């Protein structure tokens, strides 16, 4: 296995970490309208991710930075090519971060309501668009011989990619509902479990169609195994939430995300961004990667830093391990 293959795997790991962690953050944001009945309940939801959402989002920045360093051509083609969708995602993430921090800073009802709308929409839109983006990466887009994206915005809104968007949207919402059931106490926990069950069934239908479509178009033996793991984990997650095993359900919905990302990356390899115009113009792990020297330095950095990051981020979840309910939300903590 050469270093650029190692980095292909590491990029997949970073995206997995991002979708696993910010996946439930997005889900919780969406649930502020789907599940919460009043402001206190909305605040319960927001506070389940309060101490961790910022750290979770760094997985995205790291995936971006690592792609820049390890696969500059991929970074350049992807982000200049998907200019408008990425613009929408970034605007959402900018507003979303401010919304969490500023919502409680003024007592006025209008102020808080506006930020709550913002939290919902800026969670929903990226949850959808990331799926659209990955659907397009896997499907292949119009890339010319100079590695430039030559399609337009509307080309990105094809049925396969849009289905991918619905899959991430429903999967993250499901993941968020299971997370909520795991992190809350009282009535909201019961309702989160029931909602998770419904969301799980919707997700199962959408995800199955999307993954089978992916397998038929681009799959091989390895991706089939990843697909089966994803499907079994999703069924397990739904079953576990039905019988009230929230911890198991959360672990399994996490495995669903990891296996689905693994499947997409397995269908890509050795390409990183296939061209739909000509196979010879594909961006691959070899023609898009950095020099061996840079990859070696990056490998050392990742090998040392990643376990430490996992350790202290894991510790954060342990510090804030207590479930929260409406009784834990102070009335006037603005």
């Amino acid at each position, binding site marked *: 296995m050469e270093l650029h293959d190692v980095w292909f795997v590491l990029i997949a790991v970073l995206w997995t970490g991002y979708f696993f962690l910010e996946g439930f953050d997005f889900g919780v944001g969406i649930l502020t309208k789907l599940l919460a009945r009043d402001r206190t309940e909305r605040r319960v939801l927001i506070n389940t991710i309060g101490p961790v959402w*910022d750290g979770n989002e760094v997985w995205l920045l790291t995936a971006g*930075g690592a792609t820049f360093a390890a696969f500059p*051509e991929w970074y350049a083609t992807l982000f*200049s090519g998907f200019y408008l969708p990425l613009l929408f995602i*970034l605007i959402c993430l*900018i507003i979303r971060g401010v919304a969490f921090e500023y919502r409680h800073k003024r007592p006025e009802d209008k102020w808080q309501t506006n930020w709550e709308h913002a939290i919902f929409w800026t969670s929903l839109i990226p949850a959808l668009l990331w799926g659209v983006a990955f659907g397009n990466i896997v499907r292949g887009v119009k890339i010319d011989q100079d590695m430039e994206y030559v399609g337009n915005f509307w080309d990105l809104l094809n049925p396969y990619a849009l289905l991918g968007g619905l899959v991430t949207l429903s999967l993250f919402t499901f993941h968020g509902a299971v997370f909520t059931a795991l992190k809350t106490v009282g009535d909201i926990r019961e309702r989160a479990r029931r909602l998770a069950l419904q969301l799980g069934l919707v997700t199962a239908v959408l995800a199955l169609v999307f993954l089978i479509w992916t397998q038929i178009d681009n799959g091989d033996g390895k991706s089939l195994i990843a697909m089966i793991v994803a499907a079994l984990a999703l069924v397990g997650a739904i079953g576990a939430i039905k019988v009230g095993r929230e911890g198991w359900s959360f672990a399994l919905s996490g495995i669903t995300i990891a296996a689905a990302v693994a499947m997409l990356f397995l269908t890509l390899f050795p390409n990183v961004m296939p061209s739909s115009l000509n196979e010879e113009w594909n961006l691959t792990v070899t023609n898009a990667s950095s020099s061996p*020297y840079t990859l070696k330095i990056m490998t050392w950095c990742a090998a040392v*830093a990643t376990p430490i990051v996992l350790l202290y981020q894991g510790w954060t979840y342990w510090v804030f391990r207590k479930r929260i309910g409406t009784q834990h939300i102070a009335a006037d*903590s603005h």
Partner: protein
Amino acid sequence: MDLALAPETLARWQFGITTVYHFLFVPITISLAALVAGLQTAWVRTEKEKYLKATKFWGKLFLINIAMGVVTGILQEFQFGMNWSDYSRFVGDIFGAPLAFEALIAFFFESTFIGLWIFGWDKLPKKIHLACMWMVSIGTILSAYFILAANSWMQHPVGYKINEEKGRAELTDFWHVLTQNTAIAQMFHTMTGAFMVGGAFMAGIAAYHLMRKKHIETMKTSLRLGLVTLAISGVLSAVSGDHLGKIMFEQQPMKMAAAEALWDGEESAPFSIFAYGDVDEGHNKVAIEIPGLLSFLAHNNFDEYVPGINDLNEQMQEKYGPGDYRPNIPVAYWGFRWMIGFGMASLGIGLLGLWLTRKKFLLPQHLRVGEDEVPHLVVWKKPLGAKWGKWYWLLLLWTMLFPLIANSWGWIFTEMGRQPWVVFGVMKTSAAVSPNVSQGEVIASMSIYTLLYAALAVIEVKLIAKYAKAGPPELTEDDLNPPTKIGGNSKDDSDRPMAFSY
């Protein structure tokens, strides 16, 4: 294509707007993280309530500010790929690594430990809670270092070779990139500049309360910490600026000639106080100068030759081929002056404040005040009258903005002074833009960012003003009795509300 709407121009405007805006929050974040951690350390060590009040007060303002710094930073990670894809392709092998290091080491640090600090008051023993704030501070400083190493490589590329076959620059010596003199000097200068911002911020808001004789104990401590920070970092900023200037005279003489509007080389070159020039003609119409000072700034010697813009332009044409190698001279010239002017003005006002509010040194016995009294502003033997005193507090309040303005102009100067290069001597800015991103797309993104950032600026400044005016909070029993166990002490009162919640 019309120059004003050329893809390069649009992409540069967007980069300029979003980056200068981002950097309004960065220096406050870097300095306040350390200052808040310092105040909290004082609380943990002395258990004096004024330190805890100050920690909570400045901590809150810090959080309102860092939220903006974080979210405007997200865009920066992707903007290179979006608007500067040819740049990214050409330099990614080198430039990407410090960015990835920054994310993997610094961003995770900052973002994870800030969550622990915000929500950790009733979950962590006080020393561990304090350690989290220091971790945040270390994260902000590491982040600055990696991104400055990356920027320094654009100012002065080292440790690389050109791979002709792949048509890109490739890294050969990462250690050199991280430790070259440009990176060290920029780090030193940026850090001192950042601490001037935080010092002036603290002193300004403290002055506001002292002028009204409110929250005196906490604000006196804050005033002193702010003024001392401003004075020390101000002096070090001048030292580091001089050092960086000398390096730039060697590495980018054109930038420094532009900073002085020195059109033709001179021995014993003068330092320009005011100049109004004609760029097309290549000379100044009006010039007020201090003889010999520029030679000294460049070479520590009042007589040495300093090359001018016209000479350097010719030299670069010989070396790099035909073209115009002059940056925007008025921007470089005035940017340099505003940087120094606002920076040194804030230092002067800070030093004056330290003198006026001195506790004992050369201060007559009867003018010394107790812990809970506003200091007299004593010039020599007599305090300032009420009117003049008020003027000084107001001046200090406005001085909050000075180092921030100086920081912004410093960056505008150094980045625009490097033009037409994006990587000095290696890649021109015009060759760096994304060829496949349309004018319409860039205009759309630039407009959206500008409007969004303007709206957020209004919201942010109003919030800062609201919480700054409110002053430090009253402390509760829970504040004074932090938990002794990780995760919180209480088993019996598990229904107690969280100390902090969104």
